[in-house]
């Protein structure tokens, strides 16, 4: 168990969520008599949730920095309608439409970021206002009409990887992508392990790494198989491809770059970050702006998928994205969260939705169940913290841990001084 925990890093909640996700999938696979893990359903699941997952990527950064964004649904709708109108009325090509949409998202984000970072209005208020503002703009600009988009723009939201090369019975590009992904994971993991070992850092045993790689590659290849064997004309969806690229980019930014470090630092302790030379205003501005750009992208993908922009696009998306982030292990107080965790959190919600739908559960019950899942996931985390990190999994593995290592490696090595005790008491 302890080794398994190492497989997925130290974050108990994220680890728990991966298990929850796998358990959910297995449960629904059995309960629906195998209708969950069919190519058609999995492709659907990705197509229908990719825009929420894209929002979750931006939202987790906003939440790590200690803010919230309630306006993403409205921004997505406003950008969607503007792009649809620009393509219809000005006749601009689809790629110019995409660029326009991203630019508009950036502009809106700069507006909101300015209020949050430089004026100092809480993001809750700024984006609550934004939610009203941009919903209004959407309906004003589109005159509350449905505006269709041309087929080449629809490709963005409902397209698939094309068929190329010899007829293998699979979609060749999907297959190639899957194998490349698996290879990338293996090489990356082994290289980082070798480096860590060279530096003398603690590395997990070889069999742990091997097991981890087998599990991950197995999952990737199985998903590849499902995507590659869909009904003719379908394969790995374009929105899924966009999502995958974004996860890679933002995962890298958040964990490996100076900017990513600064986002965590500002969210964890803004004053300490400022005294270390971090320009917290700039960080807050960028995080809010980035969220709106991604919201614009999500809006365009949705318009592409539903073939038209409408006045009620994106209603309630902000809540789905926020729920995904919190289920994925982020803390309400900021400073904690990961991009990958949020994607898993979003997938938990998506699989739940999808599975309940397949079982014919009504929308009323589905909402009740989703609400409880969110509450329990966060309660689990709060409980962990109040119990000094003793999670359910921790309790199960307690005895095992004791046999493995020193009983208490973190025993305080100094006596508490008078002043500290007084300060604590006061």
């Amino acid at each position, binding site marked *: 168990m302890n080794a398994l925990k190492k497989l997925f890093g130290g974050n108990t909640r994220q680890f728990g969520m991966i298990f929850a996700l796998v358990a959910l999938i297995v449960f629904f696979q059995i309960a629906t008599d195998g209708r969950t893990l069919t190519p058609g359903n999995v492709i659907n699941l990705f197509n229908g949730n990719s825009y929420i997952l894209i929002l979750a990527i931006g939202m987790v950064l906003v939440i790590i920095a200690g803010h919230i964004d309630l306006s993403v649904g409205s921004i997505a709708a406003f950008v969607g309608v503007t792009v649809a109108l620009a393509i219809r009325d000005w006749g601009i090509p689809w790629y110019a439409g995409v660029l326009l949409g991203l630019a508009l998202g950036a502009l809106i984000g700069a507006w909101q970021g300015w209020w949050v970072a430089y004026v100092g209005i809480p993001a809750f208020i700024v984006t609550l206002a934004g939610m009203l503002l941009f919903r209004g703009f959407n309906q004003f600009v589109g005159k509350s009409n449905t505006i269709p988009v041309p087929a080449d723009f629809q490709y963005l939201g409902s397209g698939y990887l094309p068929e190329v090369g010899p007829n293998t019975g699979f979609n060749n590009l999907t297959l190639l992508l899957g194998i490349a992904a698996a290879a990338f994971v293996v090489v990356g993991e082994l290289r980082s392990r070798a480096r860590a070992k060279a*530096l003398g850092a*603690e590395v997990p045993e070889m069999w742990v790494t091997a097991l981890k790689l087998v599990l991950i590659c197995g999952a990737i290849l199985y998903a590849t198989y499902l995507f590659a064997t869909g009904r003719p004309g379908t394969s790995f969806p374009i929105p899924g491809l966009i999502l995958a690229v974004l996860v890679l980019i933002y995962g890298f930014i958040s964990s490996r*770059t100076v900017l990513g*470090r600064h986002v965590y*630092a500002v969210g964890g302790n803004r004053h300490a970050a400022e*005294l270390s030379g971090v320009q917290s205003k700039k960080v807050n501005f960028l995080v809010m702006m980035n969220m709106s750009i991604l919201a614009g992208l999500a809006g365009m993908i949705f318009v592409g998928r539903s073939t038209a922009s409408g006045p009620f696009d994106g209603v309630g998306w902000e809540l789905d994205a926020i729920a995904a982030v919190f289920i994925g292990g982020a803390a309400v107080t900021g*400073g904690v969260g990961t991009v990958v965790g949020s994607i898993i959190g979003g997938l938990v919600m998506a699989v739940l939705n999808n599975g309940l739908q397949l079982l014919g559960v009504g929308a009323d019950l589905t909402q009740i169940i989703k609400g409880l899942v969110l509450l329990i996931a966060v309660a689990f985390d709060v409980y962990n913290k109040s119990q000094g990190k003793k999670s359910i999994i921790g309790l199960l593995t307690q005895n095992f841990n004791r046999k493995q290592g020193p009983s208490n490696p*973190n025993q305080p090595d100094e*006596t508490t001084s008078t002043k500290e005790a007084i300060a604590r008491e006061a």
Partner: protein
Amino acid sequence: MTSQTTQTEPIILEMRSITKEFPGVKALDNVSLRVKAAEIHAICGENGAGKSTLMKVLSGVYPYGSYDGDIVYQGQVQQFKDIRASEHAGIVIIHQELALIPELSIMENIFLGNEPTKRGVINWAEARLRSLDLLARVGLREDPDTPIKEIGVGKQQLVEIAKALNKSVKILILDEPTAALNESDSQHLLDLMLGLKAKGITSIIISHKLNEIEQIADSITIIRDGKSIETLNVKADGVDEDRIIKGMVGRTLESRFPEHTPKIGEVFFEVKDWTVGHPNVADRLVCKNSSFFVRRGEIVGFAGLMGAGRTELARSVFGRSYGRFISGHIYKDGKEITLKTVRQAIDAGLGYVTEDRKSLGLNLLDDIKTTTVAANLRKISHNSVVDLNQEFTVAEQYRKSLRTKTPSVEEGVAKLSGGNQQKVVLAKWMFTDPDLLILDEPTRGIDVGAKYEIYGIIQQLANQGKGVIVISSELPELLGLSDRIYTIFEGAITGVLNKDEASQESLMKLMTSARKAEAA
């Protein structure tokens, strides 16, 4: 009034052998206090001596049973279980941080929690009449409907006293009442205390301002290291400031410092006429025309009591991270530099280790390695991508050289003890390779063994030719560590003493009076 004592003046309050222990620590050890009726009794001691703890015991913040010893008040042993119980008996404490609600009016604050009611409905007419009377008694001419946030700190203090008078107070406890006040407000408050004394109200005052104590107190009890040392009768014993200081610091200086021979070079950092305003209060200055300099390889101490403006001075120099900059110049290596942001200050070779490790110095969610590199990510990143291997190597290097006790540098900083946390913070600033490192209370909340190690690190930095500024409330620490010590009182530098001419008495004198000593 009943009294069991046979003395000429009745004793209204006696605290007998009070001992208060926190887990593993004795904050008060057999402390005794005798207060006569209708006198002003001062309690003096260094920061952390136990004055506030004693007052918390008296006012029921620490309830009966959580301490040993007896509180005898008006002839009877009292068992206060909370603040309400002590207030009911007529003992009211006014804390340094005022407990007023800024949005409510003067009247509403006076009667908060004690509202005059008629069948459960507040009788505002009566409250108004009574508040006018109370305000007259404390000499505050303000409309009772004025919101608290619109009156100054001095007047707010008077409202607190009016609030206490409303509770028919017999013993008024004031914790640092004039710390945040200007000269005239302070004087008004002191006059008011004398007026209350004439009306038979007993006051206990805790203050660092010894001149004020000398002026108004009848008796003084001195507390040192959690023990009551002596009680002085101001008039009979002819007590003056020097006498009080002697009692406060009379502890022997142990050899708690590593051997160190300073190698002092030329002046490389200089601040001139530094004036900074309070961030929120418009006309209040936190630094007044301060000038100081640091030589290469020199450890410079900054002595001053809490609230004297030491931290404010340091932080305003460090990229204006505190207060409103008004005027002043900074010179480094002979050239004037402007440091408007923390980033600029770090780039110019400054480092600042805060006194408040947990809320200003550390992100408690981080682990050791990310904290170590947090102030100088640029050095270990290429095209703004952090090199995780280098991060680990750097953290590991500092873990070894500073002897941080931790199973691994991937451990969270929240799990470390105070001393090890401080080493991680020091590592973070050492990694920025500063020319001048400012250490604000570097050994606060750290035990003796770890202190010794931190002193060693500080001396080592000085040996490398860096300038080090140490701000500390503990005079023995400054005396043992510094080559030169500046004293600060109410935002102004009042003097500078070389190591060989400084003593606890001479420093304390400069730290507690506005008298400008001759610059060394």
